[in-house]
Structures are given as C-alpha cells and as structure tokens.
C-alpha cells in the first residue's frame, strides 16, 4: 500500500492508503506504487485513477500540478481537482473546474474528453 496525499493550495483534499494510483505525468501516464524510485514530475491535465486489483475505485480530473513520489508516499500537489463521480457530460459545464479553466482551451478539451470517456474505467 502507498500513502496517497492530495493537496491543493488551500487545503489537504484527502490522504489515504491505496494499492495503486495512476497519474497523468507530463511525459505520459504513470502508476504510483510502493517502492517506486524517488521521482518528481509535473502533471498535465487528465485523469487520476485510484485502483485496486486492476479495477478503478475512484476517479478524478486534475487540471495540472506536481507529484512527488517517495518509497511509501505519493504527494500530489494539484491546481484543480474534481471527482468524476460528481460530473457527467450534461452538467460538467457547471462544475467548478470548468469555470476555473475558462479560457484554457486545451485543458477544457481534455476535461470534456475525460468526463465523457475516461482513459481508465
């Protein structure tokens, strides 16, 4: 198990033990698992998926940020985060993330894509 800690500039969003978390790294998706080599990467907009036994337990959209991976700790510093269970294709334009991303066409495009058809299901 790895300790996944998700932090926004305002507060700690959540912190919990997970088997695996898939994150949208700047140069490709990667999975955070225990005993990963120490690693720092920036994030591109995309889906963050918390998985156990090859199934997605929880799924989020992150608009970007940083991740720091140590032996048993995965710290994700996010700009914006939205649980995908809260948004669907009909209401995503009302979501907070959508409003915050206003003007950033590429990120919005990714958001729409992730909401409608997440890469990890």
């Amino acid at each position, binding site marked *: 198990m790895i300790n996944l800690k998700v932090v926004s500039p305002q507060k700690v969003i959540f912190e919990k033990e997970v088997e695996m978390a898939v994150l949208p790294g700047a140069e490709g998706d990667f999975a955070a698992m225990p005993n990963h*080599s120490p690693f*720092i990467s920036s994030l591109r907009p995309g889906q963050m998926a918390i998985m156990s036994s090859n199934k997605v337990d929880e799924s989020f959209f992150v608009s970007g940020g940083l991740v720091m991976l140590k032996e048993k700790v995965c710290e994700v510093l996010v700009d914006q985060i939205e649980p995908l269970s809260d948004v669907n294709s009909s209401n995503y334009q009302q979501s907070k993330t959508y409003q915050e991303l206003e003007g950033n066409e590429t990120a919005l495009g990714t958001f729409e894509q992730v909401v409608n058809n997440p890469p990890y299901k």
Partner: protein
Amino acid sequence: MPNLKELKNRISSVKSTRKITSAMKMVAASKLRRAQELAESSRVYADSLSFILSSLAGNTKNSSDLPEILTGRENSKISLLIINSSDRGLCGGFNSNLFRNAKKWISDQQGQGKSVKIMTVGKKASSFYKKTDLDIVASFEDLNSNDRQLQVSEEIKNKIMELFESNEIDEVSILFNKFVSAISQEPTYQSLIPLSNEETIEDESEFNNAVFEFEPDKNELLEYLVPRNFLTQIYRSVLESSASEHAARMTSMDNATRNAGDMIDRLTLTYNRTRQAFITKELIEIISGAEAV
C-alpha cells in the same frame, strides 16, 4: 457644576460605543478562527512545494545553471516591496507598525543605492502611499470579501513576473504582519527574488537520502515551479496577514470595550454625585426658606 442632561447623553453615547466595540471584537474573534484555519491548512502545500523546489535547486550544483528569477540579478538596482495591509481600520497598530517598518526598509535600500518601487495590498496601504512620492506599480484591494485571496495572489504573481521580465525590477520582497499569536503580530520581510533558502538547509538531511528523478527535465520543471512557488508564498503572506489583522482587531477592540466600561463607571459616578448635590441644594433651600418664616 456639570449639567445633568449633558452627562446622561454622554453616558448613553459611550454605552453604545461599547456595544459596537464589543460586537466588533466578537466578529474579529470568529473571523480569526477561520483565517487561522485557512493559514494552517495552506501550509501543507507550501511546505511540499518548497521541499520540491529546494531538492531541485540543490540538485543543480552549479548555481549559474539556475534561472535569474531564482537567484536574482547581479548588481540589482530596483527593489520592489509588496506591502500587505488591511482593508479596514480599527485594528490598533496593525497598519502603522507596518508602514513604520517599511519606511526604515526603504531608506535602507535607498542608502545602498537602490531605487524602490511599491506594490500595495489593502486599502490602507494604497491610501497611505498615495500621499508619498514613492513609485506605486500596482494596488490591490478588497481581499477578504468572497475569498478572493487566491485570485488576488495570482494577479500579484503575474504582475511581478511581468515586471521582472521587462527588467523594471531586479528584486522582490514582501512585507506582512506575521501571525505569532492572538496578541502578537510581527512585521516580517520575505524575499521572493532572489529566493530565500531557509527551507533548503532545514530539509537537507531528509533530502540527502533520496535522489529524485525528474520528469520533464529540470529546467522545464523549474519553469513550472518558480511561478507556482511565488503564488504560494504570496498566498501564504496574504493569509498570515489576514489572520494577524483579525487578531489585532480583536485585541484593540477588547481594549476599547474595557476603556469604554471604565469611562461609563466614571461618568456614572459624576452623574450620581451631581444629582445628589442638586438634591442637597434644594433641601437646604427649602429648610432655610422654612426657617425664615
């Protein structure tokens, strides 16, 4: 002899002042709690970010590889000071302490041959510095309504990046009242450009046993990190300053309430004495009138 009616009016007006100050104290106390929570919960992000930044910067042995915005320019000529004041008054020495401190800092800088530019946050600073002949590059107001702190911090960050890139400023420091406790706030400077590296030393032991891989490469990461770091530092100072403001207001309003109470006691005493003096005088008049008959 004081006029009875006048005294009565005085007492009632001081009483209503006391009501107002004690209400302000309550409001400040509850706002303080919220501001303190916000300041504390934002610390996690700021700490992690500065840890990442210091492991990144520490990893680069040659400091000349680091961008100018991190290390500062050689021969810096123009300093920018960001002053974090409050939007409202009635908070004791909160703003005046800050301005006194800033004045000293500015003359220090000018003594070193640098010119100083000012960026004001909060209405009090902007109205104070308008009267001076200092160069104000930007003013930001109305931070505490509708949780605009993060948004304003972003605007400040964009502004300083823009000014730095166009060579209008070489150094940036930020001045704010640091929240020490509910009764003590301390004007504090923090240097943004060049980056102050207090945290680097602190975290060294922990960071030595982990050598990180970076993705994308360091320079690209720094490009993302540096503005992020500015934003969090500014945001942090804004939050600290708002917690300090509420704390300062709470203590000064507490004092004001107590002073009003003392004043009411004194005035009531005078009022009663005067009233008695009137009664005694009237009695003497009646008795001496009766004796005359």
